[in-house]
């Protein structure tokens, strides 16, 4: 529990800890945690030509698409045929997370919650329905539109298919959505409100209206249409912007008692979460970085972790001209000039999944903790002079990771940070 200044007033050991015990993911670098881990370790990029929509109108024609996903493998045929792609990603990731945790049935479904982040949400589906309505008339609007045309369906469809009967929420806070979902998931466990929380995020933004808007903002690279794997270049001097991606990741969080009593295996702890807002721009962060730094400091404080203990930072690292030097300054200020942890941007492999980015990145961080390696930042040959941290360029490094930080910044000048820590063998 915290006072008005975000300072812990109830010792953290009096609160229940939130253990990650399962990961499910559908990503541009693989579906399922094994394929995802392998790609992170080998530095295998999932960025390719834009194929899900007609690429010709856009300056940027690359994307991080999910290419190996078969909806029927994860849900009944009816849902596989009719539900939006974002929902299919979420359901598949949630199922895989539960399976990875080794949970076959919920002990008490009313004590299980699901919180999923998504920024674009059902807009891709709604936009397609709107186009059908305008082109073909009212008779062609699908009768399921009221059920699928709102973003709340991302969490509720998972609840329906997995029998989750506690709190069911889709959280939409731009590119911090899933960091916030995971942070609130931790708080539901810590506060005794739930015993199990499925948390993470899903995004399927590759639709003409969304792609056009980011393309017109000039946020995506246009010089790499013939070499898509080189398109996302975080912290590099020649970076041109973010590469839009799609997919989902879901973590299973469990309380101490729940994981102990069922004999589950903790992979890591979600130890702290901090979230702030600059309350300033619709788009970018304030350059002084004060609120971004506060989000990170709150996450560290709530985790009871000193900045010097951070071994690895999974950075927001979007590869936009604005983000990377800004984030570098923020990290340097919070972590101190002498402390140089590994910092990498896995977006160079998976792209930017918008509201699901922090979920994929939290999953990558747990994988790094478990596998004792640091995923690389690809395409980093000539760093921006303003970006002077150790970004683990181009190849993963074998190194133990005990305490890690994951940062996220979003439209609306939102900031979020998660602290993840190795589980000490079941506490």
């Amino acid at each position: 529990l915290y006072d008005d200044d975000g300072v812990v007033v109830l010792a953290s050991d009096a609160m229940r800890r939130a253990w990650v015990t399962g990961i499910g993911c559908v990503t541009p670098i693989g579906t399922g945690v094994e394929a995802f881990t392998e790609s992170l370790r080998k530095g295998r990029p999932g960025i390719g030509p834009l194929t899900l929509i007609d690429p010709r109108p856009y300056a940027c024609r690359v994307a991080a698409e999910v290419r190996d996903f078969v909806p029927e493998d994860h849900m009944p045929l009816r849902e596989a045929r009719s539900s939006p792609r974002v929902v299919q990603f979420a359901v598949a990731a949630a199922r895989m997370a539960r399976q990875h945790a080794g949970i076959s049935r919920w002990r008490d479904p009313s004590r299980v919650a699901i919180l999923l982040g998504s920024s674009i949400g059902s807009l891709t589906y709604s936009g397609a329905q709107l186009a059908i309505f305008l082109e073909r008339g009212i008779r062609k609007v699908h009768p399921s539109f009221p059920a699928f045309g709102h973003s709340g369906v991302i969490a509720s469809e998972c609840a329906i298919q997995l029998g989750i009967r506690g709190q069911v929420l889709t959280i939409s806070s731009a590119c911090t959505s899933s960091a916030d979902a995971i942070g609130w998931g931790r708080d539901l466990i810590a506060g005794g409100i739930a015993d199990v929380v499925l948390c993470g995020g899903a995004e399927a933004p590759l639709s003409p209206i969304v792609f056009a808007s980011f393309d017109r903002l000039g946020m995506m690279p246009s010089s790499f249409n013939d070499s898509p794997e080189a398109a996302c270049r975080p912290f590099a001097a020649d970076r041109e912007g973010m590469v839009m991606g799609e997919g989902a990741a879901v973590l299973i969080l469990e309380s101490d008692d729940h994981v102990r009593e069922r004999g589950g295996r903790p992979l890591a702890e979600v130890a702290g979460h901090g979230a702030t807002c600059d309350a300033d721009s619709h788009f970018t962060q304030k350059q002084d970085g004060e609120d971004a730094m506060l989000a990170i400091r709150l996450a560290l404080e709530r985790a009871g972790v000193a900045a010097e203990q951070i071994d690895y930072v999974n950075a927001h690292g979007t590869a936009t001209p604005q983000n990377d030097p800004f984030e570098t300054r923020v990290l340097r200020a919070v972590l101190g000039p002498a402390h140089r942890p590994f910092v990498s941007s896995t977006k160079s492999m998976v792209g930017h999944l918008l509201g699901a980015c922090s979920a994929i990145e939290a999953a990558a961080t747990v994988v790094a903790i478990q596998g004792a390696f640091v995923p690389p930042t690809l395409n980093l040959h000539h760093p921006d002079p303003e970006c002077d941290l150790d970004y683990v360029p181009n190849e993963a490094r074998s190194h133990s990771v005990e305490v890690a930080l994951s940062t996220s910044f979003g439209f609306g000048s939102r900031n979020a940070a998660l602290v993840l820590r190795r589980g000490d063998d079941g506490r």
Partner: protein
Amino acid sequence: MVGSDDLRRFLVRLIAIELAIAEEKVLAARSLREDLGMDSIHAANILFALEDELGIEFLEIPRVDTLAGIESAIREWAATRST
């Protein structure tokens, strides 16, 4: 227009997917609503799929409760088209 056997196979499969049940149950049911638990949303989805995939445009929304009822609604639509 598809042949009546083809149409029946198509309908049975469509209903089985919508209701998430085996095709044999669709064939054995006397009432899709009472025997198989079909609700108004299931019915709307089935009619939408018929309109979308077979190019049918029902003038009035038929009351869907039996396989034979759907088939006769489709035949009635085909008859209005041919006259």
